[in-house]
Each structure stands twice: as C-alpha cells, then as structure tokens.
C-alpha cells in the first residue's frame, strides 16, 4: 500500500464522516434539549438544494454553505412552531418534515438539475500527501471538528449548556426554577436545523458538486442513529461518525482492490445494527439505561 493510497483512504473516510458528524451534532443538541426531530433528512436536502442554488447563482460556494445553514434553520422553525408552540406530536411532525423536505427540495431544485458548480474545496492545494491529508481537505471537514469541540464544551462546561440539559432532563423542574423552556428548545431546534442544512450542503457543494433529487440518499437517518449510537455524547459521536466513514471507505476500497469484506447489504444495515448493539450494551451495563434525555420527545405544557 502506497502512501498516496493510505492518504486517499483517510481523506475519503473523513469526507464520508463529515456530513454525518455535522448533522448528528445538530440533532444531539436538539435531543439534549428534550426534542426529537426526525426530519434531519428533509432539512439536509433543503440545505443541499439551497446551498447549490446560491453557490451556482453567486459563484461563491462559501455563500452557498451559509445559505444552506439558514435554509435548514428556517425549515426547522416550522417544526418548532408545530411541536413546541402547537404541541404537535414530535415523531409524526419529524417524519412529515423528512417527507416535506424531500418534496420541496425536488421542486426547488428542478431548475438546477443537470448543471454543476464550483466545489467548496480545499483552500490550498498540496502535492505532498501528508500535507494534503492534514490541511488539504474541504473547510467543512475542519469546521465539523471545531463544531464537535464547541458542542462538547458548550454542553459540558458552559452555564447555558447546563440549562439546556436541565430542560431536556426535566422541563417542569427547569420551568419551575424560571428557565424559559420553550425559548431554549426553539434555539436548540434552530441550531439542529442549521447543522442539518450545512451537512446537506456538503453533498451538493463538496462531495458531488451538483443537485439531484434525494441527493443525500438517506444519510439523515444514519445521523439520527449515530446520536443514539454515541449515547448523546459529542466525543463518541465524533468517533462513531469517523468509524462509520472509515468502514464505508474500506469496504469500497476492498471491492476496488478485488475482494469483498462484507456483503453490501450488511454494510447498508451496519449503522442501524451498531446502534441496536450499543443500546443493548448500555442497557446491560447500567441501571440508568441509555443516557437518553429524560424528557426526550415529551411536549412541554407550562402548568401556569
């Protein structure tokens, strides 16, 4: 195995991991606040199409990424209105959002089918493979790592993070102390939407600089599974996303080299299988089950 090949494998693994990581980080924060938003796939697609459209019309891919972020947040606002203010069922609304996003992105993306745009690629191109691996990837790859660190710090060490977790563990208690439960959940959902949108733009701006319907092909669901897999911890999320990216890449590399490690069907099921296994293991290990926020999915009705 040449150095070039190793670098190619590692870069591909980071590429496969990055959008999963970004989307899952957003969903992690949302779930930590006690809200379950299953619409990640829809928000990713809307981010992907918004990112492509803006990047194509302005010619500046970075603007596309910003647009994806805003579009994702905007559509998550609809979810927040329905589930938080109107107290609609979160699971049903989330699923509806996933379907809605798929349809709306296809509609909005129709004029952009069949064209390509500038890639949101590395800022500097390196010939040396090691430098390329370390500094020559898309800015989003580094951003995802920084975001992981930021989310970890926010949840673990900041006062606001503590309040957010309190809201997710016991919305009534947090409310009794005087924290604005709904406001915090709104912000968390908006952050989740923005991250999902940004993750979607990774597909339409970096990996495959184009728009095609259902471009993300189900990655949003894997992101949701990853949050559970990581038992709501950002560090494990990073590990899980990169592990998954590495497994996908190795599988394709092995096939390209002429042998198959697993049946492809097994690989498609792997993230979900891994999630089930992890859930089972955690449940066996501790009495306090899965680390899931105690109020996850429960609507908050202020008792005033």
């Amino acid at each position, binding site marked *: 195995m040449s150095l*070039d*090949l190793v670098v*190619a*494998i590692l870069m*591909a693994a980071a*590429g*496969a991991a990055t959008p999963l990581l970004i989307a899952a980080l957003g969903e992690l924060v949302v779930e930590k606040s006690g809200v379950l938003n299953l619409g990640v796939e829809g928000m990713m697609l809307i981010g992907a199409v918004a990112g492509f459209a803006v990047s194509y019309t302005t010619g500046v891919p970075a603007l596309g990424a910003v647009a994806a972020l805003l579009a994702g947040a905007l559509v998550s606002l609809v979810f927040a209105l329905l589930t938080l203010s109107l107290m609609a069922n979160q699971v049903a609304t989330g699923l509806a959002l996933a379907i809605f996003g798929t349809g709306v992105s*296809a509609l909005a*993306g*129709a004029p952009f*089918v*069949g*064209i*390509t745009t500038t890639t949101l690629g590395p800022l500097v191109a390196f010939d040396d493979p090691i430098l390329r691996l370390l500094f020559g990837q898309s800015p989003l790859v580094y951003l995802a790592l920084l975001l992981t660190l930021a989310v970890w710090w926010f949840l673990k060490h900041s006062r606001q993070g503590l309040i957010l977790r309190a809201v997710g563990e016991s919305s009534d208690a947090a409310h009794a102390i005087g924290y604005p439960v709904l406001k915090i959940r709104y912000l968390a959902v908006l952050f989740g939407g923005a991250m999902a949108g940004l993750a979607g733009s990774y*597909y339409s701006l970096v*990996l*495959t*600089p*184009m728009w*095609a*319907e*259902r*471009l*993300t*092909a*189900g*990655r949003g669901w894997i992101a949701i599974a990853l949050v559970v897999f990581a038992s709501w911890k950002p560090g494990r999320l990073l590990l899980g996303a990169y592990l998954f990216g590495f497994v*996908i*890449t190795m599988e*394709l*590399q092995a*096939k*390209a*080299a*002429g042998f*198959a490690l697993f049946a*492809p*069907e097994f*690989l*498609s099921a792997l993230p979900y299988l891994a999630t089930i296994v992890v859930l089972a293991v955690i449940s066996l290990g501790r009495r306090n089950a899965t680390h899931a926020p105690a109020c996850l999915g429960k609507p908050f009705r202020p008792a005033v």
Partner: protein
Amino acid sequence: MFDLKRSRLLAAAAFTAAALSSPIALAQDGAASGGKDKVKAAFVYVGPVGDFGWTYAHDQARQCMAEKLGDRVETTFVESVPEGPDAERVIRQLAQDGADIVFATSFGFMNPTIKVARQFPDVKFEHATGYQAAPGNMSLYNARFYQGRAVLGTIAGMMSESGKAGYIASFPIPEVVMGINAFTLAARKVNPDFETQVVWVNSWYDPAKEADAANALLSQGADVITQHTDSPAPIQAAQKAGAIAFGQASDMTSFAPEAHMTAIIDEWCPYYVKRVEAVLDGSWEPQNVWLGMEDGEVVMSPFNEAMPEDVKAAAQKVYDDTKAGNYDIFTGPITDQAGEVRIPEGEEIPDEDLLKMDWYVEGVKS
C-alpha cells in the same frame, strides 16, 4: 322534460346495443379490445425524475410521447418507487385509478407487475428489462444497452494507459452483468490485457456512495470510470482525478466536460408512442421486444472533441457496424473468468442466454 326522456331513451338504446355487441366482442381475440379516443398512460419510476439518468430518460420519453399524441393521451407518473411490495401497491393503485396502460420501468417491478396484471385483465402492462410476463395483457420491452457498452469498451481500451477500468455497478442482475461483459470484451479486443474492476454499490442511485466508489477505484489505478448506476457523481469524480468516464443514460457532458467521452442514450420515446397508439386503435398485443441500435432505441451522445481521431473512428465503426447488423459483441470465442472457453469461435450468445447471464468474461474482476 322531453329532453330528459329522449336522453333516457338513447341511454336505453345504447345499453341494449352494448349488451348485444359484447358477447360478439368477447368471442373475438381477447387481447384486441377495441380502440379508444383517449388513453390514460401511467408510468412507474424507480428513481426521481430529476436523477439525470435512467428515470430521467424515461420521463423525457413520457413527455415526448405526450407531446406527440396531444390530447389523445393523458399521462401520469409515480417516481421513486422502491422495488418490492410498495411497487405492487403503486401499480395496483394506478390500475384502479383507470389507467389503460401502465409502464413499469425497472427490473425489480417485474413480479409486482405480473401480480397486478393478473388482477386487472383489461389494463395493459408494459415492463421494462424483465424476462417474465403475465399472459394476455403484459408486454416486455428492453433495449440492447450492451451494444453501447461495446462502444464505451472500445474507447476505454484505446485510451486507458493503466489498462484498468473501474466499473460502478448496482446489482448483479443479467442486465448489469451483460453490460460489464460487453464493455470488457470490447476493451480487450483493443488491449488484450485490459481489466475491469467492478465495485457493487448495491443501489441504483446514491450519489455520495457512487462518488466514493469512483474515488476508491481511481486511487487504486483505474484511469477509466464507467457505471451502471444513475447519478453523475462518478463522472465528476473522474473529472477531478483527470480520468475519462462515460455518461449513464443521458448526456452528462455538463458535469464533466473533459472526462465525459460519450454516453449511451436511451430513446424510449418512439416505443412509447407506438404502444400508446396501439392502445388507441385497439391493436395492442402482448409482445416481448428487445430493440437496439438497429431500431434507433440505443444511440450514442456526441463524442468528446478531445478524443483522438483514431479512437473516434474505431468507436464510430462499432456503432455503425452494430446499427447495420454486422457486429455483435457477444460473438465467440469468449472465455470466462476461469479461462475456459464458454462460447466457441464464431458462435453468438442467443438472446435467452443473454437475459440469464450470470457469469463474467475473462478480464472482469468482481
């Protein structure tokens, strides 16, 4: 009042006439059920119409057919239908909603279509790329894409420096297997050491995975990328790596102006027009057709300007000879992966064997 009575009278007369004539109609050939003024044609797609590949081509043909037949046809479609139980539900719904003819455009819709066809004997069904049909009201249609694969293989064999192509494939069904074989056979006619490395992505449409697969193949020395999946992602990857590639099911030049050499184009429109017209004039009969370059159903998109002249000429010759009926890529001698001669010198693989093809020719690594 009078008008009402008259219309009742007329209705009664029409009813009597229908009652009298129907046994006669039944006594005639059951398949030809008389013409129609307007036909409702429904299409079932496996991918989104915006995939710019397989489904896109079928949908372009649907629009082209609708335009040609004007107000004599009303078309509907359902896109992104998963192959499996869902497909049956969708096809049944379309039949129930009054479609006169249903085009099911993916291999995996075959069994669902057969089931529904049995339940709706008055509706015509057309299934693309399958090998089995319900008797009486179901047709099979397919295009000889492998003829186009032979053109691609010729170009790949002549232009590849590493002598290694990466083939991104969906599922190991005969349709895909024969494409891989035709491509490899044609390439090895030019370069006897040519190898085709196949990567199965287990999906017809997953841009991210297709791109990753292409990158994996490129990083392991392939300098030609070809695909039997539906998104333009692999050719974008080829463009980035400076390799050459071929579009799938539609001209994908815009995605990769330098890498894109040519593409196999599916021209379904003439077939759809013909079949819907047959329903209109009552001459529709079940059939099993496999049309190719000879019939204009498989064509090549314009060759890339940057292609060397001798490559262009060789590729054009394969196309011209196939079109004239003088060239069949599946002519012996053909050896399989184990090095055994499967098809002796001068013999051709019969169609029924091609449609069941489950073995690879020498040079395919899968």
